[in-house]
């Protein structure tokens, strides 16, 4: 079920199991048959915790999407709303409840994810439906175990909320999530951080720690260090085009909640005698995580090394199938047959990834991709970042997708520590004239969060940061990497470098650079109950970026 969560150095399945237990308990609280009405946004994150089968075991017979009007009829005893605490959703729920068939009333329940909200309950009260609910509960889902070495809040808008709207709700959830994590995996003795938001999260954690004093059970700490980083400390990395296999799948097809939707043509089942059949029109949906052996092997490889890995795998698999000719005795045949399901799974996995790799290759070998990458790399190495880029100009003239333009312009701005007013205004005018004046607000928002900015009188310190942290490596080995810069074929992500330096030799060696990056940097130590100090082992660092 969740084998991908076992493979990392920390067993994250404990977290998943805890989350599943809470879910089961809530479902059982609403005894009898039930229908779940979903806030659609939540279905993805929930998929990482529980499949439909779990819900079914607890008498969930129907699922609906939350929308206005009356809830479709279903012969169930309970209607359970799974929603985020948002006012606009409360209005819809109120409408649902008000238009319920009075002759066959069903019991209503609300499960707020990740937290109950007084504000929302107040709204339900104003709408006169608060008393219609038998259970109002919260389902704390802050850090979701995403893969063996990754927890995610699956909160795509938190950067926007924190930096654009000054709404730090997601930071509160992050702090709460880290507290849950510590309740399951022990107190984390060291906390490091960089940035305003990181500071805020750490402060909340320390405060919560005081609040819960005495109520925690004692667990041997699993994590040695927690590193909190603000996103705005490293704006460059997300702007650059990812070049690992997984990264490119995400760039091109976008991975949501661990799933990717792919064009169906490449995945048509080729069965003999069905040559002329219609091609499937539904996109092919694939789950991507380390439970799949092959994917675990190639996901983090530079795409240029994926081809070789795939063909090596192909040889291994066909050799394994050839084994059947060597199987002579009944015992040997039996053994071969017992391995067959595993081999067949491997073969279909190989077929899938070969198809995906082909789709990606079509794009990465295009001239356009190459040109765009060249410009990105020029920016990252500091070439001509203070001038208008002809390439960007051409792309605007071609009316390439706006997101591509914005990414490049922002990248140039970040790598130049702001653009000259003239250059900035030129880009802005180009974008507004080409993509519409409505984007004046888009551009203002980018400026507000610092992705785009006019050059200040301060000198451009990006080159210093680049040199000190070795953000650009000339001789990157894509096939057998010995440095993280392989992931962007030259660029080493700033946040990774900060983590590496922290591990060895420590941040003291880069004080100067830390001062150039936004926000305070800090270190906190948390008391670990005596007797629970870990013996010196390989440290486990938990990195959390806000």
């Amino acid at each position, binding site marked *: 079920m969740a084998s991908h969560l076992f493979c990392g150095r920390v067993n994250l399945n404990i977290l998943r199991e805890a989350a599943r237990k809470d879910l089961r308990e809530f479902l059982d609280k609403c005894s009898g048959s039930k229908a779940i009405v979903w806030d659609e946004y939540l279905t993805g994150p929930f998929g990482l915790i529980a499949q439909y089968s779990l819900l079914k075991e607890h008498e969930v017979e129907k699922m609906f999407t939350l929308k206005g009007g009356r809830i479709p009829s279903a012969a169930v005893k309970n209607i359970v709303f799974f929603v985020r*605490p948002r*006012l*606009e959703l409360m209005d819809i729920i109120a409408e649902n409840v008000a238009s319920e068939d009075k002759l066959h009333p069903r019991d209503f329940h609300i499960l707020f994810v990740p*937290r*109950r*909200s*007084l*504000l929302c309950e*107040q709204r339900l009260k104003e709408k006169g439906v608060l008393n219609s609910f038998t259970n109002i509960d919260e389902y704390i889902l802050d850090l979701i175990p995403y893969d063996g070495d990754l927890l995610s809040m699956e909160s795509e808008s938190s950067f926007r909320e924190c930096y654009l*709207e*000054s*709404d*730090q*709700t997601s*930071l*509160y959830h992050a*702090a709460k999530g880290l507290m849950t994590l510590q309740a399951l995996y022990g107190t984390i003795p060291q906390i490091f951080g960089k940035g305003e938001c990181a500071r*805020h999260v750490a*402060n*909340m954690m320390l*405060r919560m720690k*005081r*609040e*819960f*004093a*005495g*109520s925690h059970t004692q667990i041997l700490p699993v994590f040695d260090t927690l590193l909190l980083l603000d996103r705005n400390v490293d704006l460059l990395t997300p702007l650059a085009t990812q070049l690992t296999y997984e990264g490119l799948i995400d760039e091109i097809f976008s991975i949501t909640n661990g799933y990717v939707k792919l064009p169906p043509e490449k995945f048509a089942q080729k069965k003999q005698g069905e040559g002329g059949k219609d091609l499937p029109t539904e996109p092919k949906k694939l789950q991507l995580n380390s439970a799949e052996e092959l994917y675990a092997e190639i996901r983090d490889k530079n795409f240029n090394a994926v081809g070789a890995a795939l063909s090596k795998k192909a040889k291994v698999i066909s050799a394994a199938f050839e084994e059947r000719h060597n199987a002579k005795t009944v015992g040997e045949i039996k053994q071969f047959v017992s391995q067959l399901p595993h081999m067949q799974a491997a073969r279909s996995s190989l077929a899938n990834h070969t198809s995906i790799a082909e789709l990606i290759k079509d794009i990465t070998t295009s001239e356009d991709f190459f040109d765009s990458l060249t410009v990105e790399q020029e920016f990252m190495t500091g070439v001509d970042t203070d001038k208008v880029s002809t390439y960007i*100009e*051409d792309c*605007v*003239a*071609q*009316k390439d997708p706006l997101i591509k333009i914005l990414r490049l312009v922002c990248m140039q701005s970040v790598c130049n520590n702001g653009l000259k007013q003239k250059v900035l*205004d030129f880009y*802005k*005018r*180009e974008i*507004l*004239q*080409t*993509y*519409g*004046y*409505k984007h*004046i*607000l888009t551009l*203002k928002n980018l400026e507000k969060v610092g992705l785009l900015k006019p050059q200040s009188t301060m000198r451009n310190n990006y080159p210093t940061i680049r040199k000190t942290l070795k953000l650009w490596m000339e001789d990157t080995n894509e096939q057998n990497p010995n440095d993280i810069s392989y992931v962007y074929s030259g660029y080493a992500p700033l946040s990774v470098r900060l983590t590496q330096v922290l591990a060895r030799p420590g941040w003291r060696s880069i004080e100067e650079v830390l001062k150039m990056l936004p926000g305070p940097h800090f270190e906190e130590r948390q008391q670990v109950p005596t007797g629970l100090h870990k013996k010196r082992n390989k440290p486990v660092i938990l990195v959390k970026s806000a």
Partner: protein
Amino acid sequence: MWPTKDKTELLGPLRKIELYEMGWNLKDGLRECLVAAAPYGGPIALLKGHYRRSPSARPQLEIYSSSGLPLASFPWKSGVVKQLGWTVSDDLLCVQEDGTVLVYDLWGGFKRHFSMGNEVSQSQVLETKIFHSPYGTGVAILTGALRFTLATNIDDIKLRRLPEVPGLQEAPSCWAVLTQDRQSKVLVANGSQLFILDNTACTPVTPPGLSPQASSIVHMCVSFSYKYLALLTDSGHVWMGTSNLKEKLSEVDTKIKTPPKQMAWCRRPKSQQPSAVVMWDGLLIVVGECKETIQYHLDDDSVLVPELDGVRIISGTHHELLQEVPGACEEIFKIASMAPGALLLEAHKEYEAASFGKCFLSNFPPEQFVSMCRDLRVLNAVRDYTVGIPLTHTQFKQMTVQVLIDRLVYRKLYPLAIEVCRYLKTPEYQGVSRVLKHWACYKVQQKEESDEVIAKAVSVKLADAAGISYSEIATKAYESGRTELAIKLLEFEPRSGEQVPLLLKMKKSPLALSKAIESGDTDLVYTVVMYLKNELNRGDFFMMLRNQPVALSLYKQFCKHQEQDTLKDLFNQDDDHEELGNFYVKASYKDQRLEARVALLQSAVDEYYKAKNDFSAKTTEDEMRLLRFQRKLEEEKDEQLVGFSLQDTMTTLLSVGLHKHAEQLYKDFRVPDKRFWWLKLKALAEKEDWEELEKFGKTKKSPIGYLPFVEVCIKHHNKYEAKKYVSKVTPEQKVKAHLAVGDMEGAAEAAIERRNESEISTVLSRCSATTDHLLMERLNRAKATAVKK
């Protein structure tokens, strides 16, 4: 086991232990008193002079501990009380004739009252019973209309009126409340008929093997666990069986035909022997499995208090416990017993060391022994006369340490409670901290001490205790009218979230707001903000937000989704012209009518100028200009344009041949040459207007070079036209241009001429081995020299 062992009497299989000589001094004993004693050695309530109904002499309500120490005493001023009873948490319930139930605490303090419904108050209470179940304390009432009304849990009152009992003309001879199948039911006897009443039906039942001489059931009682039932008939027989009436355990003739005063079960959990106690004036009869009964004379009016493992008998002077002799004790005290326990007792007498024999047991785990010793010590402490909670070990285990501590706290025996917690090593969070919190709650209500003294005392005592909820203590202080003390105490609360509701209640809203912000819980901030919004006038509200940027930005978010107009007011208040401009821009996109849009944009322009943001102002002016232009052209040329970007407008104009208009926009809006060239190039190619394209290419030197011309033509599958531009391409792009039109020779030529290795390689990679054999040789040679260089 008992401190008062000397006063133990053995009565066959039962023993009677004197618990206390009562500390009270009752002139008339329990005569003419309404009495209620709480189980688990709980308090005793007496309503004296209750039967004298004269207006001059008010009845007196008195509350005592089990040892008869006075806890409270006050004249009863309310209505006629039908019944007294205790809740599971030691609160006193007084059920009045009109169905009102008054709740008092152990100290005689009035807590609240509730009604058992209109029906009850109209037809009055005839009889009532207070019962305990897993759902809490319940009240059952038989009304003057001979109907039963029931509330299973007085803390969450849901009144149930039970169905009618057929043929009931007068009060039933007896009845009792049962808890079965997670439901409270009433068992009613009407003469010899027996009925079970539940929510929906009244079902006649027959106890198996009930002696046929009986013409009426005159008394009944249910065991503590609701598992067993005893019925007393007018023929003097006691029938004992299971309460589901499936099994008869025994039947005994008491030979007394007068109705008794009280009847109760007296058995230990898991005991095999059924025994019940029936009490008449001055006489107590114990009936069991055999035909013989045990009789016992009572000197005084007494009350039976059923317990989990026996019956307590309270009289005007004494308090006794009647219970089955435990197996272990029987072993010990049997004459000439050689059981290990008996030997140990002998050893104890000799050496005065109870744990002496333990040394001879090598593999005996000591935990059990240690924990039993601890339990016994705690029990001895609470049985003490001054505390007066006569618990047996069985009761203690059933009730749990937690509850015992609660009871000690309720009796304000804080030091003892803390001692017990420490001694039993209860986790601090559930133990000492909790007791201290209760102590503090009590402390803050002491009016004679000053705020400072109390706050100091509380903080000193509670300083090291983990998990203390100061807000609860502060709430108590506030409730007793000490707001200042409450605020002082709240300062100690580590959970800022907990502070907020109380601060709001105390109208300390600025403090509440900053505490909410401190907690980081945005929902809490919103809650306070919404509260303030309703409480304050708009000006004050805005002022308060202004001083709290976190709250202000959250409120702005709220307004953005919920109250656009307020958002505008907020920006206005702050003279935030930039945001106002943005606000109008956004509004302009929501309006469909062009005039309105332009007007909104004009407002935006004004604001942007005020904000000294010339770029935004000029851009917005451009936008208005474009809109007007589009509108005009739409009217003139019937071409849909409004809403298009400038670029798309020009594209459309070119594609329909309105070149002049496109040119005009190009000039008016100062479109860069490069982009306009691209635009025109693509538009003309799209229309396949090759002639116009050629003309355009010659108007002046192309700012984008000529490679785009080649590529665009190829894209539209016109190699012929494409070739026209190859010669004009700059040397750097020559190879690319030749390749684009498929001219391998030309590409090779250009590459070799430029001696550029990578270009040569590019051409090579495009050559096919079969057709371009010679070319490849040349290229390879050139490459070799280029590399050498």
